[in-house]
């Protein structure tokens, strides 16, 4: 599970205060608050989620987790080839849907391979992508930062207090040095050809700003930005491109100021129970998943939500 996409019960006290307003924010929920308060209410506060967990989240989560584990093993001294075998073994097991007994133990010889409903983000292509990535970046000039206590800066889940009782939360895959500078490293997957424009889309971008902000604050290192290793997943191949997105101190100051304003707006909307739609966002990124709901009359939306979504899990 990618901790940047934590599933919680709506109004979980770990994320919401006694007024019902959210105080613990990760990049997913910040983006929702920036994008549309109506969507924020449906997704975070009411907990409507697609019937099937998004294949992109599953695939991306497994992929990032496998690479994190690999870097962790190697930083701890494991032989590179052994580390590859280890992460592929784990991936094969994680992508097999076992049946469980009454004691929540795996029933051996049970289950089936994970069946993806996507034409390229499949189990086999996930394994291919991890192997190809690790071979392509075999002589990677980036190196994992080793912290003062001797531990490698990988797989770091953070809770970072901000102003006004707000906490930023998230998960950093890896902190690396590259040409003497320190960056957060993040993995992305896409079905599209990766162009310079793809990387330009990460500035401005809340996730990358939060990662840089958190990297600086948590590790007390002069983090310059994020190295994005993007993987284009196609039927017959996976192609990788590496891009950079930089954040200066004044950019981060501005991001912090604007983010707290967006959070404040979402918290006030929660207290007032008033969530205006941002209609200019409806068609962004291939169209909002709730577009066909919002296009209906308010009186019938609940019925349509019940048909296509399940209630009870909130993506934070």
């Amino acid at each position: 599970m990618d901790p940047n996409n934590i599933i919680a019960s709506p109004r979980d006290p770990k994320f919401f205060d006694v007024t019902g307003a959210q105080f613990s924010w990760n990049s997913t929920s910040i983006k929702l608050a920036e994008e549309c308060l109506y969507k924020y209410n449906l997704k975070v506060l009411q907990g409507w989620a697609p019937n099937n967990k998004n294949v992109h989240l599953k695939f991306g989560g497994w992929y990032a987790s496998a690479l994190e584990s690999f870097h962790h093993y190697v930083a701890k001294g494991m032989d590179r080839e052994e580390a590859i075998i280890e992460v592929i073994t784990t991936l094969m097991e994680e992508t097999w849907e076992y049946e469980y007994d009454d004691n929540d133990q795996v029933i051996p010889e049970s289950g089936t391979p994970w069946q993806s409903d996507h034409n390229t983000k499949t189990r086999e292509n996930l394994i291919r992508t991890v192997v190809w990535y690790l071979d392509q970046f075999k002589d990677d000039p980036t190196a994992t930062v080793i912290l003062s206590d001797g531990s490698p800066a990988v797989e770091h889940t953070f809770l970072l207090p901000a102003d006004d009782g707000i906490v930023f939360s998230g998960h950093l895959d890896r902190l690396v040095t590259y040409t003497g500078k320190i960056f957060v490293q993040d993995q992305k997957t896409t079905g599209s050809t990766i162009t310079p424009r793809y990387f330009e889309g990460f500035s401005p971008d809340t996730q990358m700003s939060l990662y840089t902000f958190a990297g600086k604050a948590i590790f007390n290192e002069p983090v310059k930005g994020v190295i994005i290793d993007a993987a284009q997943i196609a039927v017959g191949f996976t192609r990788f491109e590496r891009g950079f997105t930089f954040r200066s101190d004044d950019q981060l100051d501005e991001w912090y100021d604007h983010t707290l304003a967006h959070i404040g707006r979402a918290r006030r909307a929660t207290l007032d129970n008033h969530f205006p739609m941002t209609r200019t966002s409806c068609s962004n990124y291939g169209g909002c998943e709730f577009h066909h709901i919002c296009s209906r009359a308010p009186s019938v939306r609940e019925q349509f939500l019940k048909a296509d979504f399940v209630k009870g899990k909130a993506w934070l």
Partner: protein
Amino acid sequence: MDIQELFSRDPLNLTKTDISTIIEEMRKSRHNFNLGNMKAGSTKPKTEKQKQLEEVSKGLDIDL
């Protein structure tokens, strides 16, 4: 080698050699992709025709 059979097995029954075989096959497909075969990494089950071609190619010392 057709690695679909390994993918269809309970992973708890896979040996280290099986995992190495999967990795090696993935590496071969990457090598072929780098040589220009844009379908080299396809993990779809092979058709009978593809299997026959593979058999023939074994005697020719070429990669398909």
